[in-house]
C-alpha cells in the first residue's frame, strides 16, 4: 500500500505534508489514496487514447474514400470501452465504500469524541460514560495510534466541514443534524485539519491540530488534561489569576477547576501546551499569545473575540496566567 501511494507521489514530488490527502496516515485516507491511484491510471489511459486518436486525426495522410463503416465499428468499440471503464470505476468505488465502512470493524471499541464547530473554532469533547472522565478542549485533538475513533459532529451556527486529509475524507457539520465520521490513525505524528465548507469571514482561519501518539502517551496526556488547572502559587500569579477571573475573559472562556466557565469561546484548559492558537492561525508561543490577546481583530478580523483595551501590565498578567496552563 505504501509503495502504491509512492507511485502517485512520484509525479507529484513533495506531496508529504501535515495536511495532505496524498500522505495517508490513517486507514481511511490510505484506502482512498489507493482508489485515487486506480482512477488516475484508468482515466489517464482514456485520456491517452483520446490524445492519440486526436493526434492521428490531425497528422494522418489523407487518402480518398476512407471507409465510414470502419469508423462506426470503432465508435461502437469506444462506447463499449467507456462503459467497461465506467463500470470498473463505479464498482471499485462501491467496494471502497464498503471497505471504508468496515475499516474499524473487528478492532477494539472506538474512542468516542464529539466535535462542535462554531464560527471560527472547534470544540472537542472526549465522551465517556463516567462524567468525571469527560474532557473538553478546543482546536486540538489527541488520538492514540491504531485505535478506531468515532466522532459525532454538530454545528452551532452555520455549516462547517471537518477535514483531516491525512486521516480521512471530510464530513459536513450541519445545524439541526448530527453527522459522524470514523478515523483510524495508523502513523504517529502531527497533522492539521481545516474547515472545508465556507462558513463566513474567517473560514480561512479555522484549522485544528491532530496529534497522533502512541497509546501510552495518549493515556498520559488524557490523565493530565483531566486534572484541574494548577492553582496560582506566588502573589504575582494570584494577582494574574484574579484579573483573569474578574474581567471579560472568564465570561467567554472556561478553565476547568476555576470559576471561569464560559462556553462562548474555546476552552482554555491546557492552552499553553497546544501547538497553535486561534484555531490554527498562529503558532503558540508567548509573544504570539500576547499579540493575540492584545488585538485579536487585527490578526483574525471579525472573529468573535473582541479587542479589549488593557494596559501593558494587565496584558502581562493575562498572558502570564495562561502560560501556566499546560
Amino acid at each position, binding site marked *: 500500500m505504501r509503495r502504491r501511494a509512492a507511485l502517485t507521489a512520484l509525479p*507529484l514530488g*513533495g*506531496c508529504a505534508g*501535515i*495536511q*495532505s*490527502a496524498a500522505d495517508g496516515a490513517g486507514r481511511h*485516507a490510505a*484506502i*482512498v489514496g489507493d482508489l*485515487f491511484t486506480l*482512477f*488516475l491510471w484508468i*482515466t489517464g489511459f482514456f*485520456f491517452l487514447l*483520446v*490524445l492519440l*486518436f*486526436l493526434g492521428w*486525426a*490531425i497528422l*494522418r495522410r489523407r487518402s480518398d474514400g476512407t471507409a465510414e463503416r470502419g*469508423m*462506426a465499428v470503432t*465508435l461502437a468499440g*469506444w*462506447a463499449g470501452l*467507456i462503459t467497461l471503464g*465506467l463500470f470498473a*470505476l*463505479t464498482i*471499485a*468505488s462501491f467496494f*471502497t*465504500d464498503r471497505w*471504508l*465502512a468496515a475499516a474499524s470493524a473487528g478492532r477494539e471499541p472506538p474512542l468516542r469524541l464529539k466535535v462542535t464547530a462554531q464560527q471560527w473554532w472547534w470544540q472537542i469533547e472526549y465522551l465517556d460514560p463516567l462524567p468525571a472522565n469527560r474532557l473538553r478542549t478546543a482546536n486540538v485533538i489527541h488520538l492514540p495510534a491504531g485505535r478506531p475513533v468515532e466522532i459525532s459532529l454538530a454545528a452551532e*451556527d*452555520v*455549516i462547517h*466541514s471537518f477535514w483531516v486529509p491525512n486521516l*480521512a*475524507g*471530510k*464530513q*459536513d457539520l*450541519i*445545524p*439541526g*443534524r448530527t*453527522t*459522524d465520521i470514523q478515523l483510524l490513525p495508523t502513523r504517529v505524528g502531527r497533522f*492539521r485539519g481545516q474547515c*472545508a*465548507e*465556507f462558513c*463566513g469571514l474567517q*473560514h*480561512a482561519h479555522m484549522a485544528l491540530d491532530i496529534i497522533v501518539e502512541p497509546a501510552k502517551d495518549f493515556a498520559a496526556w488524557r490523565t493530565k488534561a483531566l486534572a484541574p488547572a494548577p492553582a496560582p502559587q506566588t502573589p504575582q500569579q494570584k494577582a494574574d489569576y484574579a484579573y483573569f477571573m474578574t474581567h471579560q475573559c472568564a465570561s467567554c472562556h472556561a478553565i476547568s477547576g476555576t470559576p471561569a466557565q464560559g462556553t462562548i469561546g474555546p476552552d482554555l484548559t491546557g492552552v499553553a501546551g497546544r501547538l497553535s492558537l486561534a484555531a490554527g492561525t498562529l503558532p503558540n508561543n508567548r509573544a504570539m499569545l500576547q499579540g493575540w490577546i492584545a488585538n485579536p481583530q487585527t490578526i483574525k478580523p*471579525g472573529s468573535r473575540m473582541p479587542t479589549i483595551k488593557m494596559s501593558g501590565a494587565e496584558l502581562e498578567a493575562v498572558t502570564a496566567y495562561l502560560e501556566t496552563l499546560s
Partner: protein
Amino acid sequence: MTAAADLPRDGAELRGEALHARLSRTWDTPGDLYARLATVDHKIVGQRYIVTAFAFLLLGGVLALIMRTQLATPDSGLISADRYNQIFSMHGTTMMFLFAVPMGEAMAIYLIPLMLGTRNISFPRLNAFSYWVYLAGGIMIWVAFLLNVGPETGWFSYVPLAGPEYSAGKRTDFWAQMITFTEVSALATSVSLIASILKQRAPGMAIGRMPLFAWAMLVTSLMVVFAMPAVMLASSFLIADRLVGTQFYNPTEGGDALLWQHLFWFFGHPEVYIIFIPGLGFVSQITETFCRRPVFAYPVMVLAMVSIGLLAFGLWVHHMFATGLPRVGYSFYTAASMMIALPSGLQIFCWIATMWLGRPRFDAPLLWVLAFIVTFVMGGLTGVMVASVPLDLQLHDTYFIVAHFHYVLIGGMVFPLLGAITYWFPKITGRLMHEPLGKATVALGFVGFHTAFFPMHVTGILGMPRRVYTYPAGMGWDTLNLVSSIGAFLFAAAILLFVLNILWSLRRGRPAGPDPWAAPTLEWATSSPPAPYNFPHIPVVTGHAPLWDEPGDLPVMTGLRVDDRELLLTTVMDADPEGREASALPSIWPLIAAIATTILFIGSIFTPWAVVWGAIPAAAALIAWFWPKSGDVPPEPVIE
C-alpha cells in the same frame, strides 16, 4: 379591403433590389433612439446580449485576477477577508449567472433564426424583454457590489450562513433577487427558442436534418424550463426567510438547511450543462465547417446531447456527498454521475472522427476546438474521479474541485465560445478577424489556462480548501499558488488579445462575403451582416448541409408578404409548410414592462409591499403590450 391576391409578396414578380427595398422598409430598425429601444430584431437584441455578456466575462475576469494576486503569496494582506469573500462570491455569480448562461442564449438568439432560415425569432418582444431584465439584474448586483452590499456567501450561498442571522444586511437579498432577474430572463428566451426551433424551421429541414447547434439549443432551452423553477423556489424561500421571517431554512422550527442544497443543486447541476451544451453546439458547427464534412454519426450526436440533458437532472446529490445523507442513495448518484461521461465520450469520438474523415483546415476556430477537446476531456475525467463518493470526500471543497470545474467550464464553454465568436464574427460584422493573431490567442490562452489551473489539482490534493482569503506559508502550497497566479495573468492576456483582435477587426478586418468559410448551414446563404429581414426568400432545405447539398442558388419558397412582418411556420417533425404567422412589430412595451418588473423586484428586497404595489405598473405594461392590434386583416388563401 385588399384582396389577398393583391398583397405584395416576395416571388417571381418581386425580386432583387426592389424586393430588398420593400423588405427593408418593413423589417429595418431606424437609427433614432426610440427605434433602437423598441426594436425586436433578433440580430440587434442578440448583439446587445453578446456584448453585455462578454462585458460581464471581463468584469468577472478582473475579479479573478484580484483573487489570484491575493493568493499568489501566503498570508497576503492585500485584500481584507470581507472584501475577498465578496469578490469570490461576485466572481462566481457573475460568471455563472451573468456570463455563461446568457452568452449561450445570446449566441442562439442571433444565430438560430438565421440557421433555421426564418426572418425573426418567435416571440420577439418577449426576447427583447428578456434582454432588458437581464441587463437590469446585472447592473443591480454590480452596483450593489461597488457599494459594499455585494453578496458575500458564495455563488451558491448555503444557508444558514446566508440566512437572516448570519448574513447581516441586504447583501444576500440583492444576490437572491439577482437570481430572480436572470431566471426570468433565461426562461423568456428559452421559451422563444423552443418555439422557433420547433415551428419556424425552413421547409424541408426535418428535425433530423437540423444543425447540431439547433439541437443543442433545443435541449438547453428545455433544460432551462425545467431547472430554473427550482432555483426560483429556493431563492424565493430565502428572500421570504430574510424579509418576513418564514422558517423554511430554520432547523429549530422544522425547516432544513439541506432543503436549500437540494433545491439549489437540482437547478445547479443542470445549470452547468445548460452552460456547456451550447458549447457542444459551437464545436459541432465549427468542426463541420472546418473539416469540410458533416459531423460523423449525426444520430449519435443528437442522442448524446438529449441524453446529457435528461441525465443532468439526476445527478445533483453529487454536490452533497459530504452532508451525511444515506449511503445507499449516494450510490445511485455515483452511478448516474459516471454514466453521463458516456455520451460526452461518444461526442468527443465523433468530432475527432470528423477530423479524421474530413480535410481539416486548422484556422483559429478549429484550433479552439482542439483546445476544447484536450481541456474538456481532462475536466470530464476529474469529474469521473469526484463522482466516486470516497474520492469526493477528500476532494470536495478543495482546489481540486476548483480545477475540475474551471477545466469543464472554460475548456467546455469558453474555448468553444471564443472559437464560435471568431467563426461567426464575419457573419455578424461583415469582416474577418485577424487570423495570425487569432492563432496566437489560442496558443497563449491554452498555455495560460493550464498554467493557472493544472497546479490547482495538486494544491487541492495537498490539502488547500476553497474559498480561503489567505493560506499559511510552509504547507507546500506556496509555489503552486504562485504558478497559478502567473498562469491566470497569461490567460487574461490571451483574453485581452482576443478583445483587441475584435476591436481591430471591426475597423480593419478583411471584408467577408456571405460565406467566407464555405460553410454548410443556412446563415451563410445570406449577406454579411445579414439584411434586417434575414433572407429575401425563405430557403428550402433538402439535406443536413444545405449549402453543400445545393451548390449555386438555394431552392426557395416564395409568397410571404413584404408589406407586413410575416414568417413561415412549419410542422415540428418534417418541417412541411403549415401556415403564416405575423411577426411582432417593434414595441416600447417590453422595455417599459422590464422597468416595471425591475422596480418590483428591487423594491421587494426592501419591503414585501413592493410585490403588491409593484404589480400594478407591471400589469399595466403587460396590458399595453398585449393590447390587440386593430385594423383589417385581409383573407389569406389556405395552403394545401
